[in-house]
């Protein structure tokens, strides 16, 4: 069937901010989707609140709305743009849910918008547990047995029935219905736990309903990625087997492609089932992900769930096979059939086939529990990881080893820092946590038998055997020591097993370069092979490559190598590695822009990255994609094979920066700002000299190598002080310390983080005694972020952003406005002048970000930090101003000047506000108070004509339900620390004017009343019931303003913040943010919210 001609304009909904469970894989899918639609001549309207995405670049879609993802906003966009069709399957669960809501609200019907890709009926059948159960029964497939309970008695009856049907009484899974983000799922291991967790679950569910479900813990878990076209052709793109069995969310599991432990007969049963499922659910065109569980004892198979859309797994499957699921799903949605689409990689065979792979792919999740003290690190049915890496090798072991060193967590193999005794390890591996893999390896090393390991973990013996083999080889390397360097047979064997040079270095007691040189001397080098969808049956035209150690002579290797390097001028761009808090999609965005810019300049671009979620690892993005770990070892091998002109390290965040010095030492030419300039900005002593030389000001500071020294510095500077490790990302282990009593704890934390970080990176010095920094903390100051692009001659200000929260809250967690909303023109001019001076002095050739603090008492301007590289705000600034900073910087790196490119500063005549989005809802028990350690996973943007409206949109986009006056009595809870009381008066008056009742704690109430604001007193938690939390739980409060200072007060107000979070209520922990929120409520309630595309904003219309 050819392309549909009844459609001209297609609406696409993005997935919004990066959150746990929904990350940049949807930028990858969505970008592919938009491009495919445009290729076919459709007009594309895109809505996505996330500015850090490639898909929202104004040149990607025809109309781009960076607006909140709500039914109200989407309705306005539809009314304005009149799309003929809506493609709902590329924007994750967010887009799917919104589509259902739009359909149910009659919006789609009203404006004649057709659904393409998946129809409403199919979405509902896949999403509604009861409908899904029925559908599976229709085709004779089993699902976990379950029943809904609204009371403990009902639940007990269901449990008894489950026991009768399955022969297993416990454990059972309890899933509260309709909780925020699907949180609250629990496992009951016995009758007592069942009662307690059931009661808790009933309370958690807004509907007082819990699904009691048969547990298939310990069953093997598989996923199949299926595609179907309008002619009912259907193919399986990839099979994935989870290393971690059922019971751990697949997003938190190590997964392997293809499936490793199924016979053909069993695989075909699963394949047939997958095809039956997609047909029964009725996904007409596109991709679906179907999860299965298999009983390892007898092969019993059940269907766990199906996603009628592209997913995290489909992105992984696309990268694992070279089959671009999102792109093809889009083409199928507009009428094509699979046999009409050509395979991108072979260019001669059709996309209607099933990829076969001749390598093994391993995905390993990356966690961030260190950011959330108090969070339960046990892995279970709810996803908790923030990123992932993928590695490709010719064997399971090689792929697994490469994945481990891709993680950048300071481990280079099976090297747990502190190895507890075996019985402790046994306990640890039975309850999966983020370190289970390493604990398991140590347990095997300590003599745990494979049978016992299987009993404790239910990990398939096939995987366990390989793990044991790898651990044994690791031990052998340790015993061999330095002799390894003269033992090419062992060296080659270990490389083929995926062991890193760094791990071998440690065992041999030499330097990493000694290992590399030994490899070179013995001719032990990797070859590069192509990912080609067909196991070499056809020629691969697309250079998507991975390294592997194949052995053989140098001549053999030359014959086997599939690099086929060109003689073109080429440049390597190092990507950002796994997503983590502090380094996410923003940096991938910059890398992709660098690639685009250099391609425009006629260079061949070589991308190296190991993050399967990203646009940068789409083989379409660069000329040549190397899916490889970002380590010195792996990068140098690629450079040796390709011999590029230079390497760009400034776009991928901390990961490539850490490689800068080691690469330079190995003779690699780095493009852009010099490593020395980076060092001048990062080394505290040299930074101090720089500030002094330019006659600028920075907070007083000192470098401490021990606790005693830290105390002395703090005394000298005066409390409060900011304690932080050197060279870290996202404010890791950064704390504001108010008095001497708190110092020791945080200083020790910072030392530990400093040490870990120095061990982590590819270029890490391995310095065990890395120092920490102690800075004067500026209280009550406005923080400013400035992005600059410079070429050695000129420096252009990309944007000046004013933070809404005051200095002391990590800039990544703080909302900020572009242009500033309260700063005086003099201050703005002054920070610009200082920024330009810094750029000139550091001879910046590319991007630089500077953070300033301006105390409200008029003490002047202080420089907090200078980073001569791409920053987190680059995508936001570029999106708002239309000036592509990263592209400009990349061109500067290859010699272009700002003048040549005609770059000029743009100060928009509209306002954009960036707001952070947090994962707190996934971590019960964690305090939501913001601080200097970054904890947000993503960001949204609100853009409008005024600051208030833009801020309001940013709040709505971040999921905050701003209460709008609606005639009913609404209340705001206000409790502020003494220092904030004066400022709170204006906020409270504003709320009163909007008709809010003010509920305040005694002190705040007293102050406000004296200032003429009518209030009602409400008890603090420790003052007796009913207290403020009771009122929150009652639903009497719609807005919370709560500022605190000091550990006791923070502890005291913890339950207020947590309750507000669980209830989805807006809560502000700073007066400045509260003031902005009240302004936004006033603005948005005064007139209807309007929408406007980026293209219109930027063209001045």
């Amino acid at each position, binding site marked *: 069937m050819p392309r549909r001609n009844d459609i001209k304009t297609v609406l696409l909904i993005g997935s919004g901010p990066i959150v746990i469970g929904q990350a940049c894989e949807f930028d990858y899918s969505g970008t592919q989707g938009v491009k495919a639609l445009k290729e076919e001549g459709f007009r594309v309207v895109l809505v996505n609140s996330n500015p850090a995405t490639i898909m929202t670049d104004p040149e990607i879609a025809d109309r781009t709305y960076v607006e909140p993802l709500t039914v109200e906003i989407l309705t306005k966009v539809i009314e304005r743009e009149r799309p003929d069709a809506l493609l709902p399957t590329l924007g994750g669960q967010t887009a799917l849910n919104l589509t259902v809501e739009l359909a149910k609200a009659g919006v789609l019907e009203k404006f004649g918008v057709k659904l393409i890709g998946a129809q409403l009926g199919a979405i509902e059948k896949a999403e509604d547990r009861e409908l899904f159960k029925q559908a599976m029964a229709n085709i004779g497939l089993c699902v976990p047995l379950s029943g809904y309970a609204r009371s403990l008695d009902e639940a007990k009856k269901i449990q008894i029935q489950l026991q009768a049907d399955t022969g297993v009484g416990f454990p059972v899974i309890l899933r509260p219905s309709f909780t925020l983000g699907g949180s609250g799922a629990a496992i009951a291991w016995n009758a007592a736990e069942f009662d307690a967790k059931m009661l808790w679950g009933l309370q958690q569910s807004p509907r007082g309903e819990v699904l009691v479900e048969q547990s298939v813990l310990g069953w093997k878990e598989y996923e199949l990625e299926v595609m179907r076209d309008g002619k009912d052709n259907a193919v399986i793109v990839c099979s994935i087997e989870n290393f971690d069995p059922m019971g751990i969310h697949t997003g938190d599991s190590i997964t392997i492609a293809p499936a490793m432990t199924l016979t053909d*007969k069993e*695989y075909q049963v699963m394949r047939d089932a997958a095809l039956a499922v997609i047909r029964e659910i009725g996904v007409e065109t596109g991709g679906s992900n179907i999860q299965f569980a298999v009983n390892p004892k007898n092969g019993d198979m059940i269907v766990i769930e199906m996603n009628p859309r592209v997913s995290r797994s489909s992105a992984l499957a696309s990268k694992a096979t070279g089959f671009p699921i999102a792109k093809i799903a889009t083409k199928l949605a507009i009428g094509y059939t699979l*046999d009409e689409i050509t395979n991108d990689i072979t260019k001669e065979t*059709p996309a209607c086939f099933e990829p*076969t*792979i001749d390598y093994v792919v391993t995905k390993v999740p990356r966690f961030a529990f260190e950011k959330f003290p108090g969070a339960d690190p046990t892995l279970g049915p709810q996803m908790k990881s923030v990123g992932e890496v993928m590695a490709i090798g010719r064997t399971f072991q090689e792929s697994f080893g490469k994945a481990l060193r891709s993680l950048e967590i300071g481990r280079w193999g099976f090297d747990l820092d502190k190895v507890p005794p075996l019985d402790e390890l046994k306990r640890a591996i039975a309850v999966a946590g983020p370190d289970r893999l390493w604990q398991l390896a140590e347990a095997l090393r300590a003599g745990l038998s494979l049978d016992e390991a299987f009993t404790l973990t239910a990990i398939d013996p*096939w995987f366990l055997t390989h793990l044991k083999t790898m651990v044994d080889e690791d031990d052998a390397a340790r015993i061999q020591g330095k002799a390894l360097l003269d033992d090419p047979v062992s060296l080659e064997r270990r490389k083929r097993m995926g062991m890193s040079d760094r791990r071998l270095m440690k065992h041999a007691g030499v330097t990493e370069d000694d290992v590399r040189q030994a490899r070179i001397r013995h001719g032990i080098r990797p070859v590069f092979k192509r990912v080609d969808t067909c196991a070499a049956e056809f020629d691969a035209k697309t250079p998507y490559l991975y390294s592997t150690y194949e*052995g*053989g002579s140098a001549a*053999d290797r030359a014959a086997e190598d599939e690099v086929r390097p060109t003689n073109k001028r080429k440049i390597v761009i190092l990507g950002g590695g796994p997503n983590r808090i502090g380094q996410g999609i923003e940096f991938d965005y910059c890398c992709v822009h660098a690639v685009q810019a250099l391609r425009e300049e006629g260079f061949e671009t070589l991308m190296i990255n190991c993050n399967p979620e990203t646009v940068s690892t789409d083989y379409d993005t660069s000329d040549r994609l190397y899916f490889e770990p970002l380590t010195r070892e792996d990068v140098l091998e690629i450079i040796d094979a390709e011999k590029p002109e230079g390497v760009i390290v400034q776009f991928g965040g901390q990961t490539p920066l850490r490689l800068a010095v080691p690469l330079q030492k190995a003779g690699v030419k780095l493009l852009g700002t010099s490593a020395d300039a980076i060092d001048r900005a990062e080394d505290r002593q040299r930074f101090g000299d720089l500030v002094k030389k330019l006659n600028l000001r920075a907070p007083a500071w000192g470098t401490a190598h021990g606790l005693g020294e830290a105390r002395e510095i703090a005394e000298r500077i005066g409390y409060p002080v900011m304690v932080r490790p050197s060279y870290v990302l996202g404010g890791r282990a950064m704390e504001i310390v108010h008095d001497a009593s708190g110092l020791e704890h945080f200083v020790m934390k910072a030392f530990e983080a400093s040490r870990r970080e120095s061990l982590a990176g590819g270029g890490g010095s391995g310095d065990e005694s890395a120092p920490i920094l102690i800075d004067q903390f500026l209280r009550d100051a406005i923080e400013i972020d400035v992005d600059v692009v410079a070429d050695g001659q000129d420096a252009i200000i990309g944007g000046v952003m004013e933070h809404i929260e005051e200095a002391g809250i990590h800039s990544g967690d703080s909302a900020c406005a572009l242009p500033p909303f309260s700063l005086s023109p003099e201050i703005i001019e002054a920070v610009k002048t200082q920024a330009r001076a810094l750029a000139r002095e550091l001879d910046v050739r590319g991007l630089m970000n500077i953070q300033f603090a301006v105390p409200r008492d008029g003490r002047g301007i202080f420089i907090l930090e200078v980073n001569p590289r791409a920053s987190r705000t680059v995508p936001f600034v570029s999106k708002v101003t239309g000036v592509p900073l990263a592209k400009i910087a990349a061109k500067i790196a290859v010699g272009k000047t700002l003048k040549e490119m005609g770059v000029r500063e743009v100060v928009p005549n509209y306002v954009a506000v960036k707001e952070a989005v947090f994962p707190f809802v996934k971590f019960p028990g964690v305090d939501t108070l913001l601080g200097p350690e970054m904890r947000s996973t993503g960001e949204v943007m609100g853009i409008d004509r005024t600051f208030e409206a833009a801020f309001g949109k940013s709040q709505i986009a971040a999921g905050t339900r701003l209460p709008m006056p609606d005639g009913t009595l609404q209340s705001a809870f206000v409790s502020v620390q003494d220092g904030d009381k004066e400022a709170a008066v204006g906020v409270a008056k504003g709320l009163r004017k909007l008709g809010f009742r003010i509920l305040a704690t005694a002190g705040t109430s007293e102050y406000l009343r004296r200032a003429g604001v009518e209030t009602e007193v409400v008890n603090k938690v420790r003052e007796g019931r009913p207290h403020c939390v009771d009122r929150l739980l009652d639903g009497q409060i719609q807005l919370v303003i709560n500022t605190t200072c000091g550990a006791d007060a923070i502890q005291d107000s913890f339950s207020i913040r947590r309750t507000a979070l669980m209830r989805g209520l807006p809560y502000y922990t700073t007066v400045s943010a509260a003031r902005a929120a009240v302004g936004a409520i006033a603005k948005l309630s005064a007139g209807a919210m309007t929408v406007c595309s980026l293209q219109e904003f930027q063209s001045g219309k």
Partner: protein
Amino acid sequence: MSDAGPTNGLPPALLALEDGSVYHGLGYGAAADMAGEIVFNTAITGYQEVLTDPSYRGQIVLMTAPEIGNVGVNPQDFESSRAWCAGFVVRNLSPRVSNWRSEGTLHSLMVQHGVAGITGIDTRAITRRLRIGGVQRAVISRNVADAAAAVSRARNHPSLEGRDLAQEVSTPLSYEWTEGLWKAPGSKAVDPPVRHHVVAYDYGIKRGILRHLRHNGCRVTVVPAKTSANAVLAIKPDGIFLSNGPGDPAAVSYAVEAVRQLARSGTPLFGICLGHQILGLALGGKTYKLKFGHHGANHPVMDLATRKVEITSQNHGFAVDVASLQGKAVLSHVNLNDQTVEGMRHESLPVFSVQYHPEASPGPNDATYLFGRFIKLMDEQQRR
């Protein structure tokens, strides 16, 4: 769970190709030196089925999937009574077997049936070599000191062209087949009552085909490759089936002769793979050797009647020449990768065949409907 034992204790071995290239790895399976035509198979699952498929007689099979042996071997997944190929080349032989149905290891099965194996070599490099240069003769040898001898042995090994291997693998006596399809745990499927009697020529028949025929309500009498047409017609079967098998179709002239007679008999006739090629020759067409053949489980085939695509299991080195069919048969199925003939039917007679494997084993079950077509032809014939 059984353990295959460590792979690092394996003896050195080499694989020599007729073009002179030599790959060093580790030997497993039978200790014998074995020669044959080397072909690559791109199926990810199903090495046991491949190993026991008689169509691989005379060949060394290289699996492109790198981890092989993981699920061991079990009694249900045999496609014939034994392993037939000469050698089995893998990137990484599994050190461990893990599957609930497993009762043995790949290594021990190969030892038992005299199949030589080599592991730890760059299977992708060899695959690319075969793709670019075409099929070659090869030798797996444990005499690693004398690579030159192995190369020359590969060069002296007879080519598959012109060789009748069907005779070597066919059953010496006819027998009845009564077993239906493998049933997954919990499956409620039952084999339907028998309604038709089919005579199946065994040129190297896979059990998967027999199981599908039984699953579709057929009683099957399997007869030797050289059974005459008259002998078959004397049984008065409802349908005749021509099986898959090894070697060059042009070399089985006795079969071509018999099929020429059977096709005209009016008895519904269905051929698969070698059976399809034999039918092609019997109808007056020609066959030719492909550069490196089709061996895998992911080949797209379009049914020209419905324009629907099925993902198919394939294993053939020869093909029917499409031009030679002009006026003799109707092209019914075509391979979307290279446009080769995948199926044909006679314009007026109840005769059809496919080049690929609707019985899968290993591979997808997309084309099992073809057995239904065969049944339908028999039904129609009975109504007449």
